[in-house]
């Protein structure tokens, strides 16, 4: 008996229907060659509305979600998604067609403009685009901006420097912007320092991409000196803002010498992850890069909002329409709820929570970098009788989602933990107690962990089989 519901195709029966369109009454003949029209779609679902509801309810029950419990995923900032934001974003008031004449959508344009104002105030950058669809898309956009700026200066350069602790999107985004990647090693403290960077500062270096706080949760304290060294070399500083949550209301990247940065609205500003998107990755730039931002941009002209396409130095368009608008609605609602009274508290509580976990687990887990950390902490599986993966899978049995595993790559068997500010001390204590229990199990009953999880709808899945013999869709009679 499979724990999973049958596939929608397997419960289909000829003649069933779940749509309520009613019969068609159009008095018109098709105006298209019969040879271009298709017959019915073979094997397409035919189920009733009741069965649709039951099918998806059964699927919903198989999903862990933030509404259910803690998600201590490092560098993902899985914070609670306020419910009112969902309602506001779903309002019919905002569901305009993107090509609606401007004077009829002034409310929507104001939402975009106000979100940009918030982002400017919190980051100290000179201008923002909200067009990018996710963090990686923002990185790509930012790297295109840097490249076009340097091209205009007559010196496009070839190389982007990336610390060894970086997320994989950084080198990939820089690559698609036409750059070669050079990796910069972190020092013993887990950060970049100017002396370590200097040998890399050749005249072909366009930029350094730095995540700050970095993926170890450590603030790159040399950032201003690094920015100066880069600028002295004619290079720029890109900041990956994946971990901006730790800095909210504390410090503005623009004050630290950052030239370009992206923000993840689906991390820092509480918009839901949706099982892996939609996200939104606004990009902020310093004043000298403003002309290069992608088009279109929303601006206020004589008391009304306008969408402006005319920007001779722009990198061009990076997405359909104006970006992930309904994600922006949620982010603005979140910021309006926080207000100046709470933005700093977000960062403080996030850092308090992470340091509490660090303190409580550092005697039982190896802490490879003793440097002070902020919103997240990275342990390693050194000296343990089991691997990080086994601990992660055992957490599932206790009804908790695991932390990020095997990242960053510079830590052996990394366990990257970010509790966020939206978890209570009681929840953290429970997580800490469970971790201690699992570490006892690891010593006394390691086989329990090697086979984990035991309590989930399915057991460990064979990823080797999935990759060796890919089955990527249902076919009649083949998916048994």
């Amino acid at each position, binding site marked *: 008996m499979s724990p999973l519901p049958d596939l929608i195709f397997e419960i289909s029966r000829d003649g069933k229907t779940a749509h309520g369109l009613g019969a068609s009454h159009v008095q018109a003949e098709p105006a298209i060659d019969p040879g271009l029209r298709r017959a019915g779609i073979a094997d397409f679902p035919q189920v009733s509305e009741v069965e649709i509801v039951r099918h998806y309810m059964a699927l*919903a029950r198989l999903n862990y979600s933030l509404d259910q419990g803690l998600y201590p995923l490092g560098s993902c900032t899985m914070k609670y998604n306020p419910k009112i934001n969902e309602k506001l974003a779903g309002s019919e008031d905002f569901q305009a*067609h993107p090509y609606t004449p401007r004077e009829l959508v002034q409310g929507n344009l104001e939402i975009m403009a106000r979100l940009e104002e918030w982002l400017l105030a919190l980051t100290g950058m000179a201008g923002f685009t909200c067009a990018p669809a996710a963090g990686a898309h923002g990185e790509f956009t930012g790297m295109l901006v840097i490249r076009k700026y340097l091209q205009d200066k007559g010196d496009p350069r070839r190389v982007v420097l990336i610390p060894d602790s970086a997320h994989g999107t950084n080198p990939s985004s820089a690559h698609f912007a036409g750059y070669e990647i050079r990796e910069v090693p972190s020092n013993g403290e887990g950060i970049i320092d100017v002396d370590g960077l200097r040998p890399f500062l050749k005249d072909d270096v366009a930029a350094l991409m730095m995540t700050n706080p970095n993926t170890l949760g450590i603030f790159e304290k040399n950032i201003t000196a690094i920015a100066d060294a880069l600028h002295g070399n004619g290079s720029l500083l890109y900041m990956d803002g994946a971990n901006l949550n730790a800095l909210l209301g504390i410090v503005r990247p623009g004050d630290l010498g950052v030239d370009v940065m992206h923000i993840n609205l689906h991390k820092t500003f509480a918009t839901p992850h949706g099982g892996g998107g939609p996200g939104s990755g606004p990009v902020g730039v310093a004043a000298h890069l403003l002309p290069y931002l992608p088009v279109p941009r929303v601006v206020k002209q004589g008391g009304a909002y306008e969408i402006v396409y005319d920007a001779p130095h722009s990198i061009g368009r990076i997405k359909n329409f104006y*970006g992930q608008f309904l994600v922006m609605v949620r982010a603005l609602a979140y910021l309006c709820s926080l207000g100046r009274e709470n933005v700093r508290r977000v960062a403080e509580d996030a850092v308090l929570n992470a340091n509490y976990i660090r303190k409580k687990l550092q005697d039982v887990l190896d802490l490879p970098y003793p440097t002070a950390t902020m919103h997240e902490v990275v342990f390693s599986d050194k000296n343990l009788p089991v691997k990080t993966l086994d601990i992660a899978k055992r957490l599932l049995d206790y009804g908790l989602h695991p932390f990020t595993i095997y990242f960053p790559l510079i830590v052996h068997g990394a366990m990257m933990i970010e509790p966020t500010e939206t978890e209570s*001390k009681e929840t953290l204590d429970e997580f800490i107690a469970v971790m201690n229990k699992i570490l006892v199990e690891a010593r006394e009953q390691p086989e329990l962990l090697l086979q984990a999880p035991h309590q989930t709808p399915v057991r460990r899945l064979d990823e080797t089989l999935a990759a060796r013999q890919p089955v990527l869709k249902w076919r009649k009679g083949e998916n048994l």
Partner: protein
Amino acid sequence: MRFLPLTDAAREEIKKAIGIKDSKELFKSIPADKSFFDLAALPSALSEPELIAEFKALGRKNSFQEYLSFLGAGAYAHFIPEVVAYLSAKGEFVTPYTPYQPEVSQGNLQAIFEYQTMMTMLTGLDVANASLYDGATAVAEAVLLAVRKSGRQRVLLADSLHPETMAVVRTYTQNLPIELATVAVNEADGRVDLADLTSKLNDQTAALVFQSPNFLGVVEDSAALAQAAHQQRAYAVQAVTEAMSLAYLRPAADFAVDVVAGEAQSFGLSLGFGGPYLGFMTAREEFLRQMPGRIVGQTKDLDGKRGYVLTLSTREQHIKREKATSNICSNEAWCALRAGMYLATMGKDGLALAARDSHLHAAYFVAKAAKLKRVKVVYTKNFYNEVLLEIRKGTAEAFLATLKKKKILAGVPLSWFYPAVGNRVLLAFSEVQRCADIDRLLLAMGEHS
């Protein structure tokens, strides 16, 4: 603050546990002269009732709701069954993370697997990915895919691609060793000009990228285009902005098209002022190892039971870093899940009905518009649900302004995209309109002077 569950007492306990007196000590590594900047200029916090009132006020600054709309050109108003809105809003679908822990993500994974299956059924191609950002970026990724797969660097773009798609492809490739060239449209039938195409295809061409139905509303002769491309061993890549057409027109695979990529907003996603939408990509089997983005596959668990995982991840940035097939990480998972829900709910018959009526409403308009004196339908056959209209006197902008006074948004002026084309309008039709709405449009057009 209701999103911050730490009480003052808890904060004190934590500070004591970690050995600090003041939270400021947590931020010691930040340059002191730069930290704790002044927040006084920021707006004050809103209570929940105040927030609702604030957004109601913003909503009131929008007045599009009062208008009868025939806007399309890449975003389409189709009917969304309530059951789709209800189920997709469940927290179990809205608030999970990417399904990297498959044992507790089977719901999402199975739903995406079903979505992938339906997208392959619609296009007739072998494999679909789990989603991309939107239609334009999906086509840009398809261009990169064709270049990788063919080892060639030259890509032909049909002039009848959506101008925004064209712009995004240019942006994506601006720093890569890829040569773009455009292929003309034959003004007579609104399709790609085969003579121009043949003259531009050569043995360095990686792909021809065309859109069907194209930006002028016309369904291309995909078979002829694919055949021409294949003669030079180039790939035929079809872009789609109106996914509803897939349920009415013969599947791309019938015409030997290699890749279909585009926008699936029509499958149950609200207009949302342009996003979030849903980029999709389907391709023949041989492209699988070069596909961008996530893909869900079926496998077995330790007990031999069926289950689903993200698979072939070695193509992706978190493993291959700068050698990855794409830099995409977060995609549009929830949108894909909702699209799958929509397709399953509409089902075989409902989707066929919506797709057919979208065309028939356009056909109804075209048949009756023949009597209008001031406008002329440019292409009266082989359109799907979008119609290109020529204004015989004056500009499209002025024509649309007159209709706007009658509370009708009668399409998108082409001058927005092509400043030189001042007298053309693109209208879109779907199953949600009634013939009475179209009659009202026709009447208003008849009165236009």
